[in-house]
């Protein structure tokens, strides 16, 4: 029997104006993409507190994707450009500490890019299938019953 493929849980923070609409377009266009993402709609990628990403990993996500409007297209003019600085530092910092690059992803997807959205989800999911579950950092109730 084939070994069952690991299906990662991915939390996707999508901005309301572009990437969420892009995901919506992928849906109404019947474009197939892996069902591994759990979407959280946010007003803007600039709304993302880096702690959301870290906390998602701690609480059971195998990976996190944040997606917003392309630079220049932000509904709030520049929210995504402020976000880009934060994301650059967060991603590099966690990678330096030893977190695999595949676990934290950022992308730009516009409301018209249903295909692109599906492709990104495909890529993110496939990479994490190869990586396997997050082996560290996660909250684990199994450790609650430690013998004295």
């Amino acid at each position, binding site marked *: 029997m084939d070994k069952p493929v690991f299906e990662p849980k991915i939390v996707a923070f999508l901005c309301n104006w572009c990437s969420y609409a892009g995901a919506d377009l992928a849906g109404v266009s019947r474009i197939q993409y892996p069902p591994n993402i759990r979407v959280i709609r946010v007003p803007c990628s600039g709304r993302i507190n880096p702690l959301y990403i870290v906390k998602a990993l701690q609480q059971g996500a195998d990976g996190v994707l944040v997606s917003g409007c392309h630079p220049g297209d932000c509904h709030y003019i520049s929210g995504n450009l*402020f976000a880009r600085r934060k994301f650059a*530092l967060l991603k590099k910092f966690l990678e330096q500490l030893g977190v695999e690059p595949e676990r934290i992803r950022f992308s730009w997807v516009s409301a018209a890019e249903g295909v692109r959205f599906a492709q*990104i989800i495909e*890529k993110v999911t496939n990479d994490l299938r190869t990586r396997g579950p997050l082996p560290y950092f996660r909250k684990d109730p199994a450790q609650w019953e430690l013998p004295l």
Partner: protein
Amino acid sequence: MGAAAVKRPATEIAAIARELLAAGKIDLFIGYRQTSSPVRTTPCFLTPHDDVTRLVWNGFCSNNLAVYLTRMMGRKRIRVGVVAKGCDSRSIANLIRENQISREALVIVGMACPGMLDVAKVRAKLADPGIEKVEEIDGQVIVSSKGAIRSLARTDCLYDGCIGCRHPTPTVVDRLVGAAAPDRKSPVLDSTVRDFLVRPRAERWQIFESELAKCIRCHACRNACPNCYCQECFAEQTSPEWLSASNDMSNTLLYHIGRILHQAGRCVECGACARACPANVNLGLFTRLLADEVRERFAFESGISPEQPGLLSTFNADDRQEFMTEPE
């Protein structure tokens, strides 16, 4: 010029404090005084009628006094004079920029800083750890213990963080004590950071975990940090609750990742967090990872002036974005 013209820094600080307090220019002066230990100073708070001769200046004045400014000034109309080393002045510049304290209510007595002494390094070089007296003369640290006198090179006794100090002279200052030293151009990447980064990924995470396994979550690193002035820290927020009260590894990692991320573009690498840690966690390494990345990626140095815009409160349209995910 006669020898009398060369005042000891402590005397000079005391004179400035006396003058400022007497003239009613400030309500409070914050400096250092010696504790019962020859290798420990403690913050010293002086009001107009207090004795300014208690003030000292030596290699053990490592506390970053900027941490008291938000506590003591805040929204109160109180004018403060404060002794500031290079790193402390950068913290002050950040606090002014972040609208936490008023520049007008502050007199900064800047110290040309020769670097602070790490007692652990001094002790490690002595046979007997019972230090009775310490003098610092011409780049030497002269330590007396039980009749024995040892002379150590000052450079061998500095805190790790002080060795690579880029801004020994205060960046924002009203009165300068000592001769200004030029900013040093240390390598962008600190050597301890380089050593860490050449290790395989899994090993890096393992080092991170084993260091933080020592953490007892007293949050002293946060309380000692001038940047950490939030009324309610994420570590103690209950809605949303970022962290439960448990000090399990997962929570400890989240706390430290969160704390360090909040320092992005703000940390001045004063080392207050690492020195405050009672559990000897190598916090300097992890905070410096981010500080180095800030320098490398954005060519940004925190706390250079109060007018400088914050790293994360601004952007460039052409900021690098090579880390973004593209479809295959």
